[in-house]
């Protein structure tokens, strides 16, 4: 039934090479508005590279990427306005307070009613009491919270997260899950890479397995038996490994 609406993210035949090394080989990927996709796969499968391309930080070698109807890298500014990104680094300035960091990014995104929005976001990520403290003094978990606040500040249509749970304690993870559910509940599209299958299974509505530069398998949450993600993940990787590799010489 979702097939009628145009996809929020549409990736076709995406190839990314670093010099002679091919990281993504003709990857196809499509996300409907409101979907929460967990991108799973072993280390070196190209998850981070793929996310960097989606977030417009890296341009594709070949293939097309369209987000919300705008293509990359041609209409990057329009795409950027609709994207929120949480990378494995916090992207924050240590010598600015939480509030000042948000003020700065809010100005870059030309957010309307910035002051009120900052109050709102600080409330969501639970940093309101420490709004005037320097980010330098924050723990890893608090920096990550603020990083999420930074990513949702301009109310993006699409949220991209690269291993957001890494290095977080239980409380921070719970808070992150809470924020993600809230964002996804508002009908926003979320793409998240993860190593943590249990957490991913809790949150996402779809699971894509990325290995050897391609999406090898995809399954919707409702089609998966309870706690069936691990089995699905292993089965997909095994199938991918046994498939002969048709290397395309560059």
């Amino acid at each position: 039934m979702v097939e009628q609406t145009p996809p929020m993210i549409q990736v076709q035949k995406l190839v990314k090479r670093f010099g002679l090394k091919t990281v993504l080989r003709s990857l196809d990927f499509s996300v409907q508005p409101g979907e929460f996709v967990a991108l799973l796969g072993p280390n070196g499968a190209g998850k981070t590279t793929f996310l960097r391309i989606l977030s417009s930080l890296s341009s594709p070698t070949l293939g097309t990427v369209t987000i919300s109807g705008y293509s990359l890298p041609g209409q990057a500014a329009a795409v950027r306005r609709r994207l929120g990104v949480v990378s494995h680094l916090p992207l924050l300035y240590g010598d600015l307070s939480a509030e000042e960091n948000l003020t700065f990014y809010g100005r870059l995104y030309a957010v309307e009613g910035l002051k009120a929005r900052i109050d709102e976001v600080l409330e969501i990520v639970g940093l309101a009491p420490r709004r005037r403290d320097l980010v330098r003094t924050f723990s890893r978990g608090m920096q990550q919270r603020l990083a999420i606040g930074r990513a949702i500040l301009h109310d993006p249509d699409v949220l991209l997260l690269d291993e957001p749970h890494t290095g977080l304690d239980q409380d921070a993870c719970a808070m992150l899950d809470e924020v993600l559910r809230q964002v996804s509940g508002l009908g926003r599209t979320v793409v998240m890479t993860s190593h943590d299958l249990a957490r991913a299974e809790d949150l996402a509505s779809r699971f894509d397995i990325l290995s050897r530069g391609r999406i090898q398998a995809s399954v919707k949450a409702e089609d998966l038996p309870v706690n069936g993600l691990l089995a699905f993940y292993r089965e997909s990787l095994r199938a991918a490994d046994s498939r002969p590799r048709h290397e395309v010489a560059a």
Partner: protein
Amino acid sequence: MASKPRLLTVLDIVTALLMAAAIYMVFIFAPMERVMGAVQKVFYFHVAAGWAGMLGFFVAFVAGIVYLITKQSRWDRVELAGVEIGLVFMFICIVTGSIWARPIWNTWWTWDPRLTTATIMELAYAAYMMLRSGIEDPERRARFGAVYSIVAFISVPLTFFSIRIFRTIHPVVIGSNDPTAQGTFNMTPAMGQTFAFSLIAFSFLFAALLWHRIRLGKLQEDVERLKLQLQS
């Protein structure tokens, strides 16, 4: 893997013949300069090497611009070839200049605009090589290399003029009669012919080396690709 193009072989042979002829002209054909004597013969290859060096940096500058527009790695290879060859020729130019300056100016080194500019260029392009060696990702290496080859080349005329405003003692042999320059001489027709011939010979040498270096870069890349294919 492509075998050596026939035109390149022809170019190699022509270059070898031209260089042999240029050496003959410099040492046998051209008359001995009356005041300076044998050391004046440095002049023919000194200027020709400087010319080839500038040509190399200019090729790198143009290839850098084309690379940024097209993002094709072949232009990166052209740029690197231009810089490497330019570095060698400019070095030859500086050393031969020093050999000439010792008896004529009575010093190995002076802070003359051309000499100083050549040296600063040499340093800038040495920095270019260091910049490249500090980057793993070939695409980024090519981009940064292109940017720096453009910046470095554009600063050359500015550097030259800035040092030019100081007084110069470097002789300007062609089209100048500045009385303060030391070591000027009037070229006889045979000297002029030798000089022109050296420039042509060095231009051919430059072209042949550039082609070989670009080809070497391509072969290097092919080897890398084959290695990667073997691994996977």
